[in-house]
């Protein structure tokens, strides 16, 4: 496809709004007569709430009411069904009973005239608890196995026999600490009831899902709930499904008959607003002497809370990544006493690929083989799991190109062999991968008499650039300049769009927008060729769209706006639907890439830093290369945190979160940024959708921690199997 706008580095169409403060984030919304909610979190992780002392708080200035078990509307649980799009992050309703399942669980919501008053009163609420012993702080602190999930297993061949008979094998266990999303914008809700209708502003990655879940919980018809989320200061997955603070806020607003806004503190956000669960993974790999994999077993355990069953599917990529006849994956789930985990950027596979790609590096060491060569020898030309051909796979090009740009051929394989002054240099690599997902989607387009175009879809822009790529799509197909295109997203009343998750918005929403636009063109052509139209009597099929105008084969051109004005019409509309079709049974869809990493280890002062990352990623077509590259770069930075510093520290004695803020939970800062060289291969995947795009928000995070850990091994000769790789694990003591 020869394109004018798609595939070009368009600046963000919402950039100006963000720079000038006109972007309306949830916390910016004010409603008339609005009150503020502030949750009171439990300060134990396991036990029962015996008594709440509310008198002091109630008497404090500005306090309007305090909600808690026994003083809250009677609500229903949401069915939590992915099919019916009413999934929630926690099925348990706030204040449902007096059981405490984790530190930070809400035991009350204080509502006051100002935020400060609500917070002060929340601090003045005291609680008596009956504590129970035996709180499980983390799966890292226990040898409990958890229960096996039949739904998550898969196998082919006879991996056990092949393993036993193989000459070269490894069998290791890897742990990853629970991580926090640390999105800039904390969770926030503004709930308002207008004539029995519930209107919610929420920082949400899924307005459609939240609207359905709210309707189920409050026992309302779908039409009576509206959820708005125009701008989101990111979510990384923890805003996909609604959390209890939103239900508590909407319930309070209902009882008080006034709008209520609740903004979580960073502490609350980190305790009870989602996390990537800690994991334990055992990898057993075996190969023949030439490095051909003969057996792969990947057994995982992840955490969930006692109030919700969240499964992070760790092994899902493993059967598809390498050619191997004997493969088995299994997954266990263990309940722990901390806040409920939820999807976090590239959920499941980030953790799973970390273990697999580390294990492969260990196997390469056993084989005395270059780790890149080991991956090449096991290249999967088709999807070994489904046995379908790939729609488009160029991982070999990624390996070749990234290795070349990195200078991999100069690597001395001996650990610690490469030095620079006080520092030892380590080089490591890993494969990246993420499935290409696509869902059904609807959209609406309006061509207006002023020549502008409006495109609307009930999905969200979570900061990744959805507003921009929708505008690019409209501009590409209509020839209308970007400045005349308005994009509306983030409202549940718009035609239903997808969750902003799974890297699926691009592939899901753009075809629907295109379909809607084409229907709008048809409507316009009907007007143009009808009575009194500029092309009266012409065959609509003979008219072409060019530069925001209709054109016939005689060279006559009339702009959209002119046409509508002539006919005294304000606009014509097109509704469009798009969904994946037969291709699903014909191909396997997945993106691939390769990361190469240089770390620097100064053993004299135990300083470990990532110095350089070179990545080549194949995501099909990049609709907007600037935004797409930015997603991969951001993922790499996130992966550095996962590899080296990030860990939610739950006190093993009582399962309370210790590092609940940006100063004590260590994410990479600017000074930690390495030189990052991201290349996006441009191989449009037209089998997947007409734009050839597979999505890019998550793949960059997969494999990066493994590449870093493998580089640490190369520098130090130490294999650190537990993330994060903090300096005390590496230093010589």
């Amino acid at each position: 496809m020869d394109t004018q706008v798609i595939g070009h580095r368009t600046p963000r169409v919402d950039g100006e709004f963000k720079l000038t403060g006109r972007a309306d984030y949830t916390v910016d919304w004010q409603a008339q007569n609005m009150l503020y909610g502030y949750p009171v979190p439990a300060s134990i992780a396991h036990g029962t709430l015996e008594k709440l002392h509310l008198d002091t708080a109630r008497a404090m200035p500005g306090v309007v009411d305090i909600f808690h078990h026994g003083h809250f509307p009677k609500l229903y649980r949401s069915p939590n069904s992915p099919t019916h799009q009413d999934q929630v992050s926690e099925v348990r309703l706030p204040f449902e009973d007096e059981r405490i399942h984790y530190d930070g669980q809400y035991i009350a919501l204080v509502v006051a005239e100002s935020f400060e008053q609500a917070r002060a009163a929340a601090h003045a609420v005291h609680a008596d608890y009956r504590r129970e012993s035996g709180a499980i702080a983390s799966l890292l602190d226990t040898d409990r196995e958890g229960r096996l999930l039949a739904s998550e297993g898969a196998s082919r061949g006879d991996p056990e026999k092949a393993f036993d008979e193989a000459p070269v094998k490894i069998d290791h266990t890897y742990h990853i600490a629970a991580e926090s999303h640390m999105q800039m914008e904390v969770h926030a809700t503004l709930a308002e009831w207008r004539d029995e209708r519930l209107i919610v502003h929420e920082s949400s990655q899924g307005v459609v899902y939240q609207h359905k879940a709210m309707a189920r919980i409050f026992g309302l018809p779908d039409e009576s709930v509206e959820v708005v989320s125009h701008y989101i200061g990111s979510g990384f997955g923890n805003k996909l499904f609604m959390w209890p603070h939103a239900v508590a806020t909407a319930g309070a607003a209902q009882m008080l008959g006034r709008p209520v806004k609740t903004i979580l503190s960073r502490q609350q956000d980190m305790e009870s607003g989602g996390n990537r669960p800690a994991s334990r993974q055992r990898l057993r790999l075996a190969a023949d002497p030439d490095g051909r994999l003969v057996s792969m077993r990947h057994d995982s355990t992840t955490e969930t809370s006692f109030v919700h069953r969240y499964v992070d599917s760790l092994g899902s990529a493993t059967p598809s990544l390498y050619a191997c006849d004997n493969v088995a994956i299994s997954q266990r789930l263990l309940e722990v006493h901390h806040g409920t985990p939820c999807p976090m950027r590239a959920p499941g596979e980030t953790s799973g690929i970390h273990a697999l790609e580390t294990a492969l590096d260990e196997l390469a060491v056993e084989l005395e083989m270059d780790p890149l060569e080991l991956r090449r020898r096991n290249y999967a030309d088709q999807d070994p799991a489904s046995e379908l051909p790939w729609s488009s796979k160029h991982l070999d090009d990624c390996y070749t190109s990234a290795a070349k740009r990195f200078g991999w051929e100069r690597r001395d394989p001996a650990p610690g062999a490469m030095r620079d002054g006080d520092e030892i240099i380590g080089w490591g690599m890993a494969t990246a991968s993420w499935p290409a997902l696509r869902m059904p989607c609807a959209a609406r387009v309006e061509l207006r008499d002023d020549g502008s175009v409006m495109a609307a879809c009930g999905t969200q822009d979570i900061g990744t650039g959805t507003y921009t790529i929708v505008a690019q799509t409209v501009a590409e197909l209509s020839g209308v300049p970007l400045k005349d295109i308005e994009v509306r997203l983030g409202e549940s009343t718009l035609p239903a769009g997808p969750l902003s998750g799974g890297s699926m918005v691009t592939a899901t929403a753009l075809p629907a927008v295109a379909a809607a636009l084409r229907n709008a063109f048809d409507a316009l052509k009907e007007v143009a060729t009808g009575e009194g139209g500029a092309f009266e009597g012409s065959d609509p099929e003979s008219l072409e769209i060019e530069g925001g105008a209709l054109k016939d084969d005689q060279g006559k051109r009339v702009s959209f706006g002119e046409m509508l004005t002539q006919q005294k019409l304000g606009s014509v509309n097109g509704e469009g639907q798009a969904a994946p079709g037969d291709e699903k049974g014909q191909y396997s869809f997945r993106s691939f890439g390769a990361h190469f990493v240089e770390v620097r280890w100064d053993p004299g002062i135990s300083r470990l830093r990532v110095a350089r990352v070179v990545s080549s990623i194949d995501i099909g077509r990049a609709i907007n290369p600037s935004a797409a590259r930015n997603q991969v770069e951001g993922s790499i930075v996130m992966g550095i945190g996962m590899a080296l510093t990030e860990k939610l520290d739950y006190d093993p004695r009582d399962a309370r979160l210790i590092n609940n803020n940006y100063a004590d939970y260590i994410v990479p800062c600017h000074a930690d940024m390495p030189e990052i060289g991201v290349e996006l291969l441009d191989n449009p995947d037209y089998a997947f959708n007409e734009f050839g795009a597979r999505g890019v928000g998550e793949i960059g995070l997969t494999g990066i921690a493994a590449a870093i850990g493998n580089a640490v091994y190369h520098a130090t000769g130490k294999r650190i199997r537990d993330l994060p790789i903090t300096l005390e694990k590496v230093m010589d003591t």
Partner: protein
Amino acid sequence: MRNFAFSSAENVDQAVSSERGNAGEASYIAGGTTLIDLVKLDVMRPVQVIDLNRLPLREVERLDDGRLRIGALVSNTDLAHHPLVTQHYPLLSQALLAGASTQLRNMASTGGNVMQRTRCPYFRDVAAACNKRAPGSGCDALEGVNRMHALLGTSEHCIATHPSDMCVAMTALGATLTLEGPNGTREIAFGDFHRLPMDRPDLEHELEPDELITHVTLDTPVVGGGSHYLKLRDRASYEFALASAAAMVAVEDGVIREARLALGGVATKPWRAVEAEQALAGKPARTESFEKAAEIALSDAVPREHNAFKVPLARQAIVRALEKASAASKHH
């Protein structure tokens, strides 16, 4: 945040006058980066807050005797970049710039930095047992998540680190604090200002409740000495030290004439390693001497479950800082 009365002091007398109410419930505010943070967490609960920002304490000046007098309201940023500091006390400049972030340093004052509270997570959590915050309640850090905690100067009642970088450099450089109270002015040596926790970790310093820090005066610079501040931590910036070392070494003909050494991140107060300094004097400026000094500096270290690695880490910080400082000495 609880309500509090707020007033601005127009002059030092007003700031320390007894009219300001019950001293225990009043608090000064300078940059507010410690105070407001802890008020929001309900850890500090002042009834009255007195703003110091109108006081004329923003000067950095060289006294006739060669010492450097720093007003309590000089910001960490201004102090770090002040020509008299970068020229004569580069150690202090380095330490300041290793602390916090640019935004915080722009707000943080010299007096507030001296008075900053510990970053111990149990101190910051009103539901935890903490003798510093709630005397007699116990110390959750002793057997808890204590990776960040101190090795030196600890007691069975508190093992929290003093988190400042600036103070570590000042301890090494030698300084005097000027305190103003209702009964007049007094001076105290920097090293005597912060207290060890012992059995009263809530008593952190020698300042009386109605007293104010007006100045910090640095001793005259060590002639010909090279210096280095080395801060070791998990990420490259914006994190408190796991271990830091402020070193100053004057070398003549390969022999150490004078050495100063102070430690951060590993002690309950800004920690001057006096015995290590004495051991260095007269020794060859070589790694073996530095290693010996590190050993002496850490001989009383009491590690806990999660912070034992800080002993070797602090040793590394000391050795590398001394190496760099001696390499920077004028006559090595």
